[in-house]
């Protein structure tokens, strides 16, 4: 066990706190208490099955289990409707307080922070790999599978190996249109899809301090695409303001910071001044390139949305570029606000009208097209530019289709151009 004077990372401190310990060492396994256990319509049916095998008649805490049917909803077929029915019945029978039905739900990782369910210092686990999104709020948050979620629902505990941390320091100033998505695609391109395997990615530096919360969520969201366990950021004034808007006062949560003299497994210093708009070409998120170097690639579909980029800042950027324009004839542009509140805000601000006039389809919140589920599945040979998080073979449909990952700015510009484009090419 580490001595009291050994410096710790914020990941270590959060895990120590939730294990009832003062200090934990990287590499040791802890059985830690969780603040939230999350599941969706893909992972929760299996979790419910496993939970029932344990044989308990209640979950560990009815307030702390969160169920969001968001992947194949509104249900795309009979089988997915049956899966959602299982969730609904479980939520009713086990008195789950945080169950969110179609019409009130949103994409889980946009919805939970928006509702104020996530707080700094929390340990969050969810049966969805993008649970790491909540690291942007200074929480330790990580995805697990259905059986782990079932055990966490039963016991309120999760076993975790305390991770080593990799520190990323972002310096310099951002070029026009460059957002958190470009920074994280660039970072994954730099370290590879297993560059942070099992590690806590700690995002720091002046650029992060100046980054919007929406862009921060985008970065933490994609930590898993580098294999990361956490994608964590320190709480600062912007975090506090975000929480205050959700009526969460600073005395309602615990702030953990890495000690200044702690040893990281690695430190990357990234000068953002030279980072261009990024696109990850098929078939790995690490295949990052400058968008302007891919300009001749013709596309069939654009998707703007998902747990990665379906927030209001993302829609604002898309609206700025699409305002008064029309999308290319051959391109199907699908825009999906991530939650009902984001949808309503976009409506009030006039973005939805801009999108529809530009020839885009606008949908109720769903993960749908990101994983080739519904609402925009690709045919053989088709190519999409998408603000989502994965571009594996067959991710959005036919194994012969291709996905290029980008920010909303590149996606909106590409929709207008009918090929991969940067905003300067389509703005007058």
């Amino acid at each position: 066990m580490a001595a009291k004077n050994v410096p710790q990372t914020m990941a270590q401190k959060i895990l120590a706190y939730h294990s009832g310990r003062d200090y934990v060492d990287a590499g040791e396994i802890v059985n830690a208490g969780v603040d939230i256990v999350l599941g969706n319509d893909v992972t929760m049916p299996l979790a419910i099955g496993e939970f029932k095998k344990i044989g308990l008649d209640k979950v560990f805490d009815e307030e702390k289990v969160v169920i969001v049917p968001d992947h194949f909803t509104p249900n795309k077929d009979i089988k997915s409707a049956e899966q959602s029915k299982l969730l609904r019945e479980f939520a009713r029978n086990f008195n789950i307080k945080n169950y969110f039905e179609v019409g009130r739900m949103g994409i889980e990782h946009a919805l939970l922070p928006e509702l104020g369910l996530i707080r700094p210092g929390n340990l969050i686990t969810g049966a969805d790999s993008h649970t790491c999104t909540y690291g942007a709020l200074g929480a330790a948050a990580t995805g697990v599978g259905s059986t782990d979620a079932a055990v966490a629902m039963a016991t309120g505990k999760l076993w975790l190996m305390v991770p080593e941390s990799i520190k990323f320091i972002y310096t310099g100033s951002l070029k026009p249109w460059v957002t958190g998505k470009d920074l994280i695609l660039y970072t994954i391109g730099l370290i590879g899809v297993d560059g942070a395997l099992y590690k806590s990615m700690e995002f720091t530096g002046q650029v992060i301090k100046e980054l919007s919360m929406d862009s921060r969520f985008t970065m933490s969201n994609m930590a898993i695409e580098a294999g990361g366990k956490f994608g964590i950021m320190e709480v600062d004034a912007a975090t506090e303001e975000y929480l205050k808007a959700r009526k969460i006062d600073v005395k309602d949560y615990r702030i953990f910071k890495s000690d200044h003299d702690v040893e990281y497994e690695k430190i990357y210093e990234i000068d953002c001044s030279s980072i261009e708009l990024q696109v990850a070409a098929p078939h790995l998120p690490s295949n990052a390139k400058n968008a302007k170097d891919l300009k001749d690639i013709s596309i069939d579909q654009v998707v703007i949305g998902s747990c990665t980029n379906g927030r209001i800042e993302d829609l604002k950027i898309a609206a700025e570029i699409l305002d008064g324009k029309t999308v290319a004839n051959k391109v199907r542009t699908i825009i999906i606000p991530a939650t009902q509140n984001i949808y309503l805000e976009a409506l009030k601000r006039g973005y939805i009208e801009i999108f529809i006039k530009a020839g885009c389809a606008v949908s109720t919140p769903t993960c749908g097209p990101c994983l080739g589920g519904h609402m925009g599945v690709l045919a053989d040979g088709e190519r999409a530019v998408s603000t989502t998080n994965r571009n594996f073979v067959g991710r959005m449909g036919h194994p012969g289709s291709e996905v290029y990952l980008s920010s909303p700015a590149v996606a909106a510009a590409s929709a207008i151009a009918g090929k991969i484009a940067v905003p300067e090419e389509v703005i007058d």
Partner: protein
Amino acid sequence: MIIKEKVIKYGDNVDTDVIIPARYLNTSDKGELAQHCFEDFDTGFKEKVKDKKIIVAGSNFGCGSSREHAPISIKGSGVKLIIAESFARIFFRNAINIGLPVTTSSEAGKYIKDGDELEVDLGEGEIKDITTGKTFTINPLPEFIQEIIKNEGYIKYIKKVI
């Protein structure tokens, strides 16, 4: 536990979307998931797995989504063991949790070829390639994880300790 089977060999970054495409995630049925395992990635998998029941792969096996359907479909296909240079962390947990043995070996992926016959002693931590005569060491697992494996999955283990 000793496993003696032939090898199906794959490369690096085998992701969960190619293990079980998301279009089949509208079911939790184990048999149905097994029917579609590796369907877009290796059309010959179903035929191969009839007499090759160990997967040997490179780094980051099972990267991507948290879908437990991925190891379920592999186990349901009859695969007895996966040996990889490294695993994505959620896939690793999921496989252990459902009782599908997985193990890492830094060397195995480099030297073991498709079709080789292996004798793997999980207790002793040794992989013997019967075809080539080479032996490899398995990286040891933490005791707690070995307990879950001994109990053939996390739920059986938890029922004992809860």
